[in-house]
């Protein structure tokens, strides 16, 4: 696998988290394609990071096909915070914080798994039936024996 990061991106880490979440479990090509159409400032940095990581994988880590990579890990950390003050009306003071974030990505070779989050997969018919039966059998008349 190939790890890459970009530090101190001028973007809020909590807003960047949404972009990092979207990219998880996608192939590198799909991730880059989708990020081109995300209307957020952080998407540009994330796309550049993934392209750099793909390049590093091909040049230094002996990856044969640059499309044979998928995003195994993609997360955000808090970077430098520049604090300051601003004035409001009636002698009130406001706190101003300029957040930066670090973006970390790990690419793995091969095809991505069908479900990155196992709990999010669609349940099969037999699993749904089992759940339904469990729900039905859990029922009880209150205060009965």
């Amino acid at each position, binding site marked *: 696998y190939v790890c890459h990061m970009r530090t101190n991106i001028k973007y809020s880490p909590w807003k960047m988290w*949404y*972009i990092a979440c*979207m990219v998880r479990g996608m192939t590198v090509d799909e991730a880059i394609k*989708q990020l081109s*159409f*995300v209307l957020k400032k952080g998407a540009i940095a994330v796309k550049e990071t993934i392209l750099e990581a793909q390049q590093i994988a091909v040049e230094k880590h002996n990856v044969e096909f640059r499309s044979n990579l998928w995003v195994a890990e993609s997360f955000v950390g808090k970077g430098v915070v520049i604090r300051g003050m601003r004035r409001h009306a*009636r*002698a009130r003071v406001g706190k101003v914080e300029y957040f930066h974030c670090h973006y970390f990505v790990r690419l793995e070779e091969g095809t991505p798994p069908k479900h990155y989050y196992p709990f999010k997969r669609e349940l099969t018919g037999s699993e749904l039936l089992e759940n339904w039966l469990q729900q039905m059998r859990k029922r009880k008349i209150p205060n009965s024996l």
Partner: protein
Amino acid sequence: MLRRVGRILKQIENIFALAFGRQFPPQSLCVVAVPTNATNKTSLDVLDNGFLWAVPRSRRSVEKRLSRKFGYPEYVYKLLLPKRNLLVCNTCGHHYEANHLCPHCYAKVRTETEAMQSTIQKELGLNPVEQEVVVIYEGEKVEQPAEFWKGKRVIEMKKERPSWFSKNLLEKSTVQPSSGGDVKPTELA
């Protein structure tokens, strides 16, 4: 407790002074002589007016916190979903959103348009445009006789015509130009 009562009384006095311009209770009916310049500003009036009145009453439950972070799938989902309407442009090979223009092709057209506009501005300047403005590329002026360009302001671009820019923009490519005088009715009710 006593402090709160004192503050409320002071506020009532302030309101009375603002409304009537006089002291309450009036100077004649005071039991103790109160000096008129007794309004001491030890506490900031600004701090009393609504400062720190809004405060959370109880801790937000984890369900509420997660709902604010992720949104509701039925209402407003805050997580980003991948777009499923992305297609591949046949001319340039880049991706574009369905029912939108391909951004790569549009950027190409836009640079050309800006070049045309800058040449027009350079040549015509701030003169009023009374005649038709025609933009032609290298080697196209000789194709037409001199009378063709007579009543028009001709702007010559010093580059070759791009391959994607056709000369015939007004004529439809599918319908052939007809020589007959009949007009076919359209949109019959």
